[in-house]
């Protein structure tokens, strides 16, 4: 069930949901959503020499490859970040959110920005019950003109869905990679247990091929 403005306000009053900073509640709280603002940190994909993420190396080096793959841009308040056509960048909400165990969130764009081609997420718009932290935007400019994005502008909205309480809030889960983080975080795909197995498998193969040669 989607929460109405009345239910959202009640949840905010009781601190069941925390959204901070809540700069202008009258403008931000809509009939069934709350507008979210853009933070100050961006991570752009950059052209690198590497051909792929090499899983045959230790995790710290994969982490390094991920960092190499992205360029950090940190803008000050009242300074623009230009997202060029067909460019992809990670960013985050200005707001820190806390959700209870029985409310999930869904991140959506705002029509105002959608009309000029801005997408705020490509694939991951679900926010688990019990999430705490800032939300990540996967920004994409599908239009034809560079978009001037200023920290603090409302570019997205979150819609809340009530569910029965989950067994374990997201933040308390072992392996919750993006919990309680503030700002924009790199991907941590290599932390997924599947990738850790694949990594061990690849590394094992390399070792055994060296032995065979011996």
């Amino acid at each position, binding site marked *: 069930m989607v929460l109405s403005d009345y239910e959202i306000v009640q949840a905010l*009053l009781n601190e069941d949901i925390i959204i901070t900073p809540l700069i202008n*509640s009258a403008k931000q709280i809509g009939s069934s959503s709350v507008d979210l*603002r853009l*933070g100050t940190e961006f991570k752009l994909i950059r052209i690198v020499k590497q051909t792929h993420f090499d899983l045959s190396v230790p995790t710290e080096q994969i982490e390094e490859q991920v960092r190499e793959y992205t360029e950090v841009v940190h803008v000050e308040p009242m300074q623009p970040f230009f997202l060029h056509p067909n460019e992809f960048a990670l960013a985050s909400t200005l707001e820190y959110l806390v959700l209870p165990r029985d409310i999930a969130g869904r991140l959506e764009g705002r029509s105002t920005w959608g009309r000029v081609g801005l997408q705020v997420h490509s694939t991951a718009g679900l926010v688990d019950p019990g999430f705490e932290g800032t939300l990540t935007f996967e920004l994409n400019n599908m239009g034809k003109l560079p978009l001037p994005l200023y920290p603090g502008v409302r570019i997205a909205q979150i819609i809340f869905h009530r569910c029965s309480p989950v067994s374990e809030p997201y933040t308390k889960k072992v392996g919750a990679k993006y919990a309680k983080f503030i*700002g924009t975080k790199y991907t941590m795909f290599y932390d997924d247990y599947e990738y850790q197995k694949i990594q061990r498998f690849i590394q094992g193969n390399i070792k055994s091929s060296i032995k065979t040669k011996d």
Partner: protein
Amino acid sequence: MYNYLEKVLCIEIIEKISRLQRFLSSEPYDSKRQGAEVVGVFLKAIDGIIDNLNAVIQRLSFKDTATEEEIVLDEWEKQALIRRLSDIFKSIEGLHSCMEFIYGRWVMPETRVFLKNVLDFIPEDRRPEKVNIILSNSYSFAEVDLYEDILSLADIRGNLKGEGQSPSIFLPKIERDNPLNWSILVHECGHVDHQGITNLLETPTIAAAYETPAIKELFSKWFMEIYCDLFATKILGPAYLTSFVTFALLSAGAGGSEVASLTHPADIFRISIIHEVLKNSNLKIVLSDPVLGFDDLSSLFFNMIEERTKLDRKYMHLSVKKPSKLRLGECVDIICEEVDKIISLNQQLTIKDFARVDSLAGRLEKGILIGASPDPDKINSMKKDLEQNITAKKLEEVKGAIQESRVLPWEIVNAGWLYKVKKVYPQSFDIFFSTNELTIEDKIEKWGEDLEGMDRLLLKSIEASEIQALFEEE
């Protein structure tokens, strides 16, 4: 709690080590790059510093075998440990000064936001158009006119037409992302207000204090420092004192807090004045659970520097006398008046500004941003009104009640210090002074991650506060 001062010093040194490690690892070096070897040498040196520190930590972790209680050090051993810690800090300073060998970065945008807010206190006609902040290799905070400095170095001043000015403030590299120690930057901002300082030095009472030309130069520099101390105190409140005390405790050598220089009065002298001004203005941040019997932040830190000074006195047989010609009380009052002229009374902190510092520290503990904060009174009054059949008009009223108000950078920094004293120090004592399976390197690594999280929280709070100011409607 026993040996509080020594433990706090250990934690502060661990913090510096952790920041140094973070700075080195944040630079874009990897094993394939040329810089890796240089960074490797730094990391090796840090290992050595950790070994030295570990010896002190081990001593402070000793328990009485019969009672299993912590041991109480006698004064001589306290003195020896404090001296050892000062030496360890000096080795960190030494390492810091070698940072010129590695790739550097510019300051964080948050620092510029913080500084902009400080400079706003100086009237527009007395404020320079731009103040640079430069990350420095030496572990010192200072304000210089870069234009003047660099041109005189090159000995080309006479050949250039027109006067230039480029006031610049130096921030040690390892304090790049530590807003709690940016408090000292506020002092440096005071130096930027040349007009205020000139006015001060021409005040009859201050001018009379010189008496002889020989001490005129000395006292004018000292008064300037006190002026900047009070400038920072009136803007920041207790957070300036706590920052200054930790800096003084670490950087002072034997008898250091009582040693004056040609440019600066003795630290203990300056800190006493700041403490006095805070007390007289009733700028108090209450510790709900008193620490060492002190129920406010400033008194706790003032006691630490006093303890260190007393120990130094016993060891060094120093007997410091106040300058006999200086009518201190009167001069400090005049300096205060001069500072009041820049920072108008309605801009200065009052005890009311600290009303929510405790709840902000509570939010920090939960990991929540504190750039804005709700008003609990408004919220409580609305809770009972919110019923199912609420009108649209009433809903708008309730929305207004949950809107958050801006938390000022000074509140953020004070809340950060309060949180550090209430939670970070006790938790750190448990981690480092209790025996467990982890090595000190592992403990520092884990602890460093938490420290980084806390820094991030404070930095983003400063930014959120600025954005709130820009977009909140009247």
